[in-house]
């Protein structure tokens, strides 16, 4: 069954996904937490753990504060090879629409380009999201990236 949604909400929702991808691909880490509610859930989890009911995630944050700590970590504390990431995100698949709350799934592929190197497929999967309407516009109350990719190519520094 397809959930019904008005054009304005649909337009805002697709804009949210496009803006999110822009911010994480442009490395605007200070803006990244602002896509979320204060008590948000943000997780990047192997599909294996998700399907077998294991709670461990590769990144598992439970507040906007934790996202800010990650943003700080990227800039100040995590030594890493610099790289570009590029999201290609499918159209949001609306699973459920209630007043001011949408459950959404979206396929994604992230490419990684390291300096002086060839671009590679970095991480592929789908996101399972809960988007809520707030005074500031639509925000993610929950973003879970469930990744098919069996191996993380060395490390994951930037948020998907």
């Amino acid at each position, binding site marked *: 069954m397809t959930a019904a949604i008005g054009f304005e909400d649909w337009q805002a929702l697709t804009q949210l996904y496009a803006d999110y991808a822009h911010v994480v691909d442009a490395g605007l880490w200070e803006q990244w937490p602002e896509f979320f509610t204060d008590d948000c859930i943000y997780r990047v989890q192997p599909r294996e753990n998700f399907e077998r009911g294991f709670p461990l995630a590769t990144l598992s944050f439970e507040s906007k504060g934790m996202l800010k700590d990650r943003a700080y970590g990227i800039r100040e504390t995590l030594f890493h090879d610099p790289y570009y990431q590029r999201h290609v995100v499918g159209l949001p698949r609306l699973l459920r629409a209630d007043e001011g709350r949408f459950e959404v799934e979206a396929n994604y592929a992230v490419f990684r380009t390291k300096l002086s190197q060839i671009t590679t497929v970095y991480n592929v999967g789908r996101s399972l999201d809960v988007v809520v309407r707030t005074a500031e516009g639509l925000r993610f109350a929950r973003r879970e990236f469930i990744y098919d990719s069996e*191996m993380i190519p060395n490390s994951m520094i930037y948020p998907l």
Partner: protein
Amino acid sequence: MNAPIPLAELTAGSMNWERGTSRIPFAVYNDPALHKLELQRFFYEKHWCYVGLEAEIPNPGDYKRTEIGERSVILVRALDGVIHVVENACAHRGVAFCRARHGNVQAFVCPYHQWNYALDGRLRGVPMRHGVKREGVVQGGMPADFNFADHGLTRLKVAVRGGVVFASFDHDVESFEDFVGPDVLRYFDRLFDGRKLTILGYNRQRIPGNWKLMQENIKDPYHPGLLHTWFVTFGLWRADNRAQMVMDRHHRHAAMISTRGNAGAVSEVSRVSSFKQTMNLHDPRFLDIVPEAWWNGPTAVMTTLFPSVILQQQVNSVSTRQIVPDGHGHFDFVWTHFGFEDDTPEMTQRRLRQANLFGPAGFVSADDGEVIEFSQQTFDAKPAHRTLVELGGDEVANTDHMVTETLIRGMYRYWREVMAR
């Protein structure tokens, strides 16, 4: 002791050791032939390798596919409850028949010609063994002297201790307890004290570096307080913490034992660029540390069991980290985070939160993989050169501080003894 080892031939004359094992030739990291020999000598004979936790296969018929060195093996609980480890290679045509990574079965069946094995690896059935009758005449079939007992799956020797399973292709290997030795076994038993384990989940990363570099990384107490801002700033691991470096008598295994102190305090060890005196977490729950009775003091014990696994206790986060080599220049690093059956929901939550410090994206350990990759790049480009591990001199001995690279020197002393045999 300092003479070049015979393997120099293998590495085009570049395998020159200086000053004991405090200068390690880059050539130990980038030679495919040397790598094959290492697989044989460390992973396939005379050593116990990690294969998993009993809690991963709780029920009869449960199995998990994993690797020892570069060989595929299956950890399985037979229908009578006994744990076996068999090689994932059909005795007939060598097919690595087990494709799922985990599951529950009554028997192993190779899809190619349907050879059928019991879960302990014994061959049970071979289609058309007695030939096929056509017009009253039996055609084909296996030879009359075909003996099932000779054609089972390769069965490994198994050791289970504290819920952790190790296996060896070498049935003459010493006991697991003798292999680890009493000094390091103490720390193994501290973590795996008989309580039932619960699996929290896995992380898998592929690191483009030689597998030994990961052993070295966890035998190197010098870097954590320098590379890892979180460790030095929050006092989790810094050079002025109370610490001990303990090796087994062969110097192949080690435990790095540290007790947290001095969070935020300024001293000579905090005059490093990674120390951030003003750093405050927006959400302090990342470091909601609650001491546990079984720690008996130390807040971190990192144990390296050579060659295949690292056992992690960093405050409330506990995991095993399996090393699976893939050629001389890559390895897979498989993290299994776990808890204990008597954990409260709050403790489970705490272990999961602190897991954000570890793994391929961890605030602390993501950069370990990065530096290993960058080391390997130089090894490949400059094979005649060598690394330098002389913090604390060139001797190999246990210490009661962490300002030393003695554990790496010890590992290479052992490596040379085994490789030069």
